[in-house]
């Protein structure tokens, strides 16, 4: 039976690379997002490259009322096979912009956290009922400690991680694995215009590693792995020193 991966936020470069990885391994794809033109292109690409079924689906993280219907449709499209979830949506407006305009900040919380909680919550019973499957969600190293330059985005990802910990505990009884990937910067549109970032991963290498983790892992994992020692040190820095760093 062919398994299905539901990709939430499928137009992002990381999600795109992950979808290709999944398709290469024979999975069917549900590509959920807002840019239907783009998702259509992506579905055709996956179907031609890897001869797997791929379907674009409209999904708006902030439209909480739509989530029940959306999840029901996903379940139906996945048919008899296992439904897995890759949650990749999230926005990262400039911190300065969010500092200046609380509405921008609130919008980010809504998209990155509230939206995730709502759609994962709705998916919960479906996953429990199938007694298996995997949920992989994109967290961020930014969630490990609030930095001056990026703490709002980091806060939404930290909240997501905490949510996922409990979510994992709840679903583990049903044999569903939940994995939060603490992503370092990936070379995508989100980071393109930022000043040079350390240990940047290509979407392809990132997705290949994420796929490996998705096959086995649960809990949380740093990707690329180098972020584990780096963040261990950053987390331990005494506050007076940390606050003086311009990071």
């Amino acid at each position, binding site marked *: 039976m062919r398994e299905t991966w539901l990709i939430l936020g499928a137009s992002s470069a990381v999600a795109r690379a992950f979808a290709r990885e999944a398709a290469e391994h024979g999975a069917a794809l549900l590509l959920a997002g807002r840019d239907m*033109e783009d998702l259509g*292109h*992506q579905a055709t*690409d996956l179907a031609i*490259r890897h001869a797997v079924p791929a379907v674009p689906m409209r999904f708006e993280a902030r439209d909480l009322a739509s989530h029940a219907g959306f999840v029901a449709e996903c379940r139906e499209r996945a048919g008899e096979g296992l439904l897995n979830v890759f949650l990749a949506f999230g926005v990262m407006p400039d911190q300065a912009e969010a500092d200046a305009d609380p509405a921008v900040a609130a919008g980010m919380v809504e998209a990155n956290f509230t939206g995730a909680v709502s759609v994962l919550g709705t998916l919960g019973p479906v996953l429990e009922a199938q007694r298996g499957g995997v949920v992989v969600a994109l967290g961020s190293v930014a969630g490990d400690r609030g930095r001056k330059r990026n703490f709002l985005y980091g806060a939404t990802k930290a909240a997501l991680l905490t949510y996922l910990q409990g979510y994992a505990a709840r679903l583990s009884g049903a044999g569903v694995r939940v994995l939060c990937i603490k992503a370092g910067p990936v070379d995508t*549109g989100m980071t393109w215009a*930022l000043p040079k970032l350390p240990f940047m991963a290509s979407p392809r290498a990132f997705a290949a590693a994420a796929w490996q983790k998705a096959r086995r892992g649960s809990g949380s994992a740093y990707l690329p792995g180098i972020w584990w020692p780096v963040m261990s040190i950053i987390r331990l820095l005494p506050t007076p020193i940390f606050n003086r760093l311009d990071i």
Partner: protein
Amino acid sequence: MPDSLAAQAMTRMTGWKSTALQGWGRSTLSPCLAARPERLRELRAALDTPEGRTLIAHGGGRSYGDAALNTDGAVVVTGRLDRILAFDPATGELVAEPGVTFADLLAVFLPRGFVAPVSPGTAHVTLGGALANDVHGKNHHHAGSFGDHVLWFDLLLPDGRMQRVSEAEDPALFHATIGGIGLTGLIAAICLRLVPVPSNALAVRRRRVGDLDEFLAGFEAASGATWSVGWIDALASGRSLGRGILETAEPSPTGLPHTVPKSRRFPVDAPGWLLNGMSVRAFNALYWRRVPAAGQEVTVPYRQFLYPLDAIEGWNRMYGKQGFRQFQCVVPPGPGVAALRRLLETVAAAGSASFLAVLKVMGPEGRGMLSFGMPGYSLALDIPARPGSEELFGRLERITRDAGGRIYLAKDSLLSAEAFSAMYPRADEFRAVRARVDPDRRLGSDMARRLGL
């Protein structure tokens, strides 16, 4: 917010970053603002450049010179637009986004028995770049150039309109965009016809050739071959002027087991002395002897025959920090033969450490107004950027021009506007189409300015 911060925030929102790009020859560093759209919507947005800067597309960055550079302007990097949009195995018709590469085509379609109709010497070239330089391969003598196999393309015009361009519906724009070095708009999708092949391998024959005359006779005799190419030892002179290896290939009826390509990376910028005349001479002699005197017949995967240099990633760093330039010209048959000889003599005399020169018989004139292809012989060679190398280029350019030949824009960074107009008789036609689709001159590149386009 201070002004600079505001400007920074602006460029962030639209995805522009300040960077410096290079052509494949790495001879100049070109500062610019660059965007790298990941979807069509973002490609459209890139037309709206900061401060009204001019814009040029940048594909795989495999052009050696300044075709894809826009110093102090804006550049849109298209590599992330890499989706395959349609494929019909009955006809071989493929529709793809411009950032799809020849490597993608090989990976996806060779297992299904199809290859690109025309392929340049590296698989890292994008389809957008292939169209914009109307590239050719080792089968040009009968398959023509890339543009000959293109049915239509979607062109995002400078005013934001998307136009599907075909030879039937807008011949002028079609012919201006094929080989039009990105100056008519941003190519957003391309429809081309792939060709069926019996297996994943080629039957290749190699033989040593003693001099230029023997080479030309060899090409003549091999004119029925599907693929043919000559590798010339560019340092050999006197009686061995033009000595080299002639390679021909046919689709092999039987395939090879699938292997995953291994590539090595050229580790660092090589020190300049590595490429002195001596070491190159030794390399070239070895290369020649690798093929036994009696010739050689081998079956090799397509990849190995079409893209031999791709086995070493970043080989362009071999020429050190100063970089290098490639000279490639085509000269017509007849007077071209004497010109070929003079070109080889000039290079050998300069001792400028060109590894190998590539000689090809060229077939039909391309469809593009600025297409490089025309009947005759094409000669390509690398020349490290050293004092005196520009002057050497000047001499090679003169010989080419006097023989009625032309220099390939995909490789060029030195040609003058005046010599360009002499070599490309349809340049004015091209300018007229540009004036029609880009009256405000929103598109621009270093090459366009240099050549007076």
